[in-house]
């Protein structure tokens, strides 16, 4: 535990229950990491279901995977990896206190997040048109397990998209704070913490993309 002596005049962003900026930053980052552990378990439940049903219905899984548009999925993967880069650059700009770098990179991150959601919207739309949405309108000629695949597909990508929306809202708040010169080398905690969250949401997609779109397409 660090125990830096408080400076004569505390930083205006130092909350009264912390004794130093360093402690405040450490607490916030650790907090986000702990929260991300929770998120891993949250998605973990669905990944578990995916694993179980993939074992039960290997053939249906391959069939269903063919119904997904891997080009669009791949495009979205690129978009999110790009957004992770701009996010990392935004954190760096905040640490260096470069206002322009923060504004540009945060805006790009928000923009790329929106692009992802728009692409996702068109993918969902296609699923509705092809009767691949589970429920009474699901194409009855398809194999049984495929309906479960698509249930999981919508849950997994839907919950992921909800996280994206939360991330975009968060980034918008950070952007307005950056525009008001809130961050500098001494205080950049919100950017850092929001960045961790954003990277996590990207990584979830990095797992979702191969599991849903790619695995078994050419085999089984």
């Amino acid at each position, binding site marked *: *535990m660090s*125990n830096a002596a408080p400076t004569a005049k505390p930083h205006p962003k130092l*909350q*009264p*229950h*912390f*004794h130093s900026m360093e*402690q405040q930053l*450490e*607490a916030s980052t*650790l*907090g986000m990491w*702990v*929260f991300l*552990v*929770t*998120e891993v*378990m*949250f*998605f*973990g*439940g*669905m990944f*578990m*279901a995916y694993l*179980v*049903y993939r074992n*039960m*219905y290997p053939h249906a899984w391959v069939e269903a995977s063919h119904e997904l548009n891997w080009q669009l999925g791949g495009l979205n993967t690129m978009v999110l990896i790009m957004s992770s880069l701009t996010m990392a650059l935004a954190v760096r700009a905040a640490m260096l206190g470069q206002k322009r770098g923060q504004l540009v990179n945060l805006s790009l991150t928000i923009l790329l997040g929106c692009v992802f959601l728009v692409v996702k919207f068109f993918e969902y739309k296609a699923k509705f048109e092809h009767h691949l949405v*589970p*429920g*009474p309108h699901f194409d009855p000629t398809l194999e*049984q*397990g495929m*309906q*479960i695949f698509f*249930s*999981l597909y*919508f*849950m997994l990508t839907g*919950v992921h998209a909800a996280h994206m929306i939360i991330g975009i809202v968060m980034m918008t708040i950070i952007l307005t704070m950056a525009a008001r010169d809130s961050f500098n080398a001494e205080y950049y905690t919100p950017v850092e913490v929001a960045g961790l969250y954003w990277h996590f949401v990207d990584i979830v997609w990095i797992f979702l993309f191969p599991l849903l779109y790619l695995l078994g397409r050419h085999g089984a």
Partner: protein
Amino acid sequence: MNDATVHQEPSYLGAPYGLAAWLLTKDHKRIAILYLISITIFFAIGAGFAATIRAELVTPQGDLVTADLYNKLFTLHGVVMIFFFLIPSIPAVLGNFFIPIMIGAKDLAFPRINLLSWYIYVIGAVITLSVVISGGLDTGWTFYAPFSSISSNTDVTTAAVGVFITGFSSILTGFNFIVTVHRMRAPGMTWFRLPLFVWANYATSLIFILGTPVVAITVLLVAAERGLHLGIFDPRIGGDPVLFQHLFWFYSHPAVYIMILPGMGVISELVANVSRKQIFGYSFVAFSSIAIAIIGFLVWGHHMFVSSQSIYAGLVFSIITMLVAVPSAVKTFNWTATMYRGSITWDSPLFWVLGFMGLFLVGGLTGLFLGTMGLDVHLHDTYFVVAHFHYIMVGGGVTAFLGGLHFYWPKMTGRMYSEPLAKVSAMLVFFGFNLTFFPQFILGYMGMPRRYHAYPPEFQVLNVMSTGGAMVLGTGYFLILIYLLYSLFKGPKAPANPWGATGLEWQLQSPPITHNFHEIPVVTEEAYDYLHAPAPQLAIPASPREVTHE
């Protein structure tokens, strides 16, 4: 005792004043009080459901309520008591109030998130309870699919969404505690000087952050299956309802430890105090909390011995279940060893300690019966199970909560309650509890299944005993409510350290100031240094100066 009792500074209770200041507070102590008020309300609601159940079971015929209504009553009793009372009880009230003080911090690491967790809890609870007017809920608190996701005609979706939302309140509490314990300890407060209450709540927080998200997603999947036709567990399209049980119990078994671990932490504090002795085997007690949290994640299959789970998996789950008994026994033996040759004080906390140890012992040992695969086939879904988990969760959890509440009441409110009444109610609760639930062990062993509103006449005597016990138990709880409320207005003012206890919390005035400490303390002693603790002092002496030197 120094003369901190003489000049009192304005406490956290009074400044700032007013309802808005309370509802928007970021002070962990006020949030703990908000939680205390809300869980008391939910306890009363849950107890009302229980009272109706016990009244129905006085006679073998289902004559008071219909079978449908009975299903809704026991479901809501379980949901309310587990999600809205037991899980938040000790962590969100006593943990919230005392963890920062015990480690020498001015607040939890994230005060705003702490307040948010209370609002999430209230919103989740209101949504869940709204099913009372929108058709009830009859799935049992376990929400088993496919009944919950397809068949039930009650408002499962709303309840599932409510429970999902409430889950985030526990997650946020747990995550706040973990960060606080890691990053906010005062200088000199090393991990092995932490009070065992903090260790126990830390272990509980691990379960909060690792288990709760799994049940959250599971009930969300049930809601999606009902509301959006996204079939995950629906056997008609090839789904596997047993998968639901796996996901559900992956959280809900550890959730049992959420309800008992903080109680064990409270008892560790109390037992050292009533014995006036350092706790026996500090590090064993500390690590047994962590061990229970970890092993607790590996035993969920023992709820599913009769649900088509592989018999080999069952065997492994059965063996690991036995392993949980080891750290639990470590704690019990260490508490007993602490009391051995201690200078036992006959203050009211002792009564709760003894009550807890007796009831937890019975609850824990009968858990071994149920963890044995062969025996569980006979006892599964009988009143034996009901009796077992009530011994753990009510006999253990609620008794520990009440013990902690009595022990810390003077610190939290600055008032003393009536000691004789506290002892009477502790005994009423103990005897009432045993009379309520011990007959249920016999009923279950004889084969009476749980969750039915009617039963064969030969079970009536034991059921009448159980209902009679419930009335004694209820009287005990009600008595506590009365004299604690009375103490707020008419109770004598509490000194800073009425029990002569160790720990930073007892060095503050009662009740503490808003920021707990003017200056962050430096800790130089081990926990439970009762050799150097002041003598108990249950009332402020008339002339404080006379007792300063003994």
